[in-house]
């Protein structure tokens, strides 16, 4: 169609101005996409949490443990299907720079509770059989070049000493939202060592993980569980996994709000930049618009030219921006891997990129279009020469 050709040609009349504006849009789309991805990475633990899992911890604070004897009592509560338990180990690999999440867990029940960690059955068997065995997520193993059978030593921070493990399995996530940067080993290995070295700290898991038989029962089970240990030496606080994860995230909610605010400001800025470009463009072409109107073209045609150009610039920037978002997010995700275990550009972000670009393109065209249409033909023609 004729008008599309004209929009296309008009867009590249001022190559430098158009290129700079497109560059601006590209940067904004990149910034917007990455910031959104950071925010969703922040909430990744919440997103991937299961409604059928509960987390039980000491009601005073997460740093206080619970007695191992609770295990059997929890199992007897109506609606409980699985019980697992563990401790945040907090060990360092080689030195402190190498941060990743590592837990001592009761392995069989833990794997039952977390079907999203997919382990080949021979690796699973090998992991369960060997007291010193450990498993790691695919991303973590790749990062350190670990292979099955490797000996791995973690330096304990909460539990002092050098702890030696043998890697027996590498798990994969069920989907992109699953954290593949964790490290798990046998709780018994930790506990038995503690019995010898620090008997006072033995037999005390940091948390219990409870699987309910039916998600509808989750609330009920949580209440019943906490009631069971009311007035005991270690009272419990049980919440859904989601609520538990959220309590971590909400500590840093201010940061998330700040990030979102920045995204918003960046969009306003590019809107102003594009509106300015379109205003300059339309002002320069007032005479041409007057000629077109003289020839009998209506206001809609002028509007289509200006809106078309504005949207075209915004969408070129958007597409280039999206194209760059993926590799840059990948580099970012790889370097920040263990801090943001799940760092994926989601489809939703892409749709939002497109939506934002369309919105910015349209808004930027409104005032220039209104001016171009409003001006009387005779006045527009007078601007030529």
């Amino acid at each position, binding site marked *: 169609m*004729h008008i599309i050709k*004209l929009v296309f*040609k*008009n867009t590249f*009349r001022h190559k430098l101005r158009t290129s700079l504006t497109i560059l601006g849009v590209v940067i904004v789309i990149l910034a917007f996409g990455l910031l959104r991805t950071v925010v969703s990475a922040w909430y990744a633990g919440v997103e991937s949490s299961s409604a059928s899992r509960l987390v039980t911890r000491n009601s005073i604070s997460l740093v206080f443990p619970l007695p191992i004897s609770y295990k059997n009592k929890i199992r007897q509560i109506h609606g409980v299907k699985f019980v697992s338990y563990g401790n945040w180990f907090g060990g360092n690999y080689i030195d402190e720079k190498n941060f990743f999440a590592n837990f001592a867990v009761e392995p069989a029940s833990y794997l039952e509770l977390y079907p999203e960690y997919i382990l080949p059955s021979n690796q699973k068997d090998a992991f369960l059989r060997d007291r010193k065995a450990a498993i790691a997520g695919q991303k973590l193993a790749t990062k350190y070049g670990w292979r099955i059978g490797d000996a791995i030593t973690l330096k304990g921070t909460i539990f002092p000493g050098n702890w030696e493990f043998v890697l027996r399995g590498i798990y994969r996530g069920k989907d992109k939202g699953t954290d593949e940067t964790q490290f798990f080993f046998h709780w018994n290995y930790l506990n038995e060592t503690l019995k010898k070295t620090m008997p006072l700290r033995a037999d005390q898991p940091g948390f219990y993980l409870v699987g309910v038989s039916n998600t509808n029962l989750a609330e009920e089970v949580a209440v019943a569980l906490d009631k069971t240990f009311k007035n005991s030496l270690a009272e419990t606080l049980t919440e859904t996994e989601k609520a538990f994860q959220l309590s971590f995230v909400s500590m840093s909610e201010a940061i998330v709000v700040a990030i979102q605010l920045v995204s918003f400001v960046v969009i306003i800025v590019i809107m102003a930049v594009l509106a300015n470009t379109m205003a300059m463009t339309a002002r320069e072409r007032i*005479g*041409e618009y007057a*000629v*077109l*109107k*003289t*020839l*009998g*073209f*209506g206001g809609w045609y002028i509007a289509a030219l200006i809106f078309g150009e504005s949207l075209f610039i915004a969408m070129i920037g958007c597409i280039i921006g999206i194209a760059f978002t993926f590799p840059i997010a990948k580099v970012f995700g790889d370097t920040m891997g263990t801090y943001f275990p799940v760092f994926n550009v989601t489809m939703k972000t892409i749709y939002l990129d497109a939506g934002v670009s369309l919105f910015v393109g349209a808004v930027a065209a409104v005032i220039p279009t209104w001016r171009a249409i409003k001006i*009387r*033909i*005779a006045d527009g*023609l007078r601007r*030529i*020469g």
Partner: protein
Amino acid sequence: MEYKTPLVEIKNLYKSYRRGSQIIPVLENITFDIEDGEFLALMGPSGSGKSTLLNLIAGIDTFDSGTIKVGGVDIAALFETELARWRSTNVGFIFQFYNLIPVLTAFGNVELPLLLTRLSRKERREHVETALRIVKLADRMSHYPGQLSGGQQQRVAIARAVVADPTIIVADEPTGDLDRISAKEVLELMGRLNVEFGKTIIMVTHDPHAAEKARTIKHLEKGILNAHNQTRL
């Protein structure tokens, strides 16, 4: 038809501009007719209102009072969109500064008025080629305005003005920006449009040589038509 009405009838036309609270009268009580097939030159000093009058006849500006009828149509009574339609079928425009769209080729510029018609792509191509042949630029079809001389650009503009076969052609100082030789070519072309194709032409000009091409010359002085019109054969 027993009685031939004039193509353009202008009666008691008043037009003023408003600059803030100030009202500047530009045209005062203008009354005259333009016959079908006329070649009229409007002359007069700068600021006398020639362009204003031309714009009013062509339906691209509004006036305070009076009437303008073109081919029996009272153009002040038309809505803006109707007026735009009316212009596209009845009036061809030639401007002093050619006013071609720089990103379109000669072909594309001439084709513009036809985009508002129901003509097919093929029919449009034929019309454009014919128009460009009339102005002797058939070989420059794919050139952009920036690649053409002023005279050639003005000839493209003339082709654009005639391509939709309007009844009236209005030209505001069509030779004002051209050298003598190019101006002569353009004027000859306009003469041909008038004689060969029977177009009614209204041309504003400062140039007495240009005015000589016309059949009638009217003088505008401070918004008032000079009583004695020089009419030539």
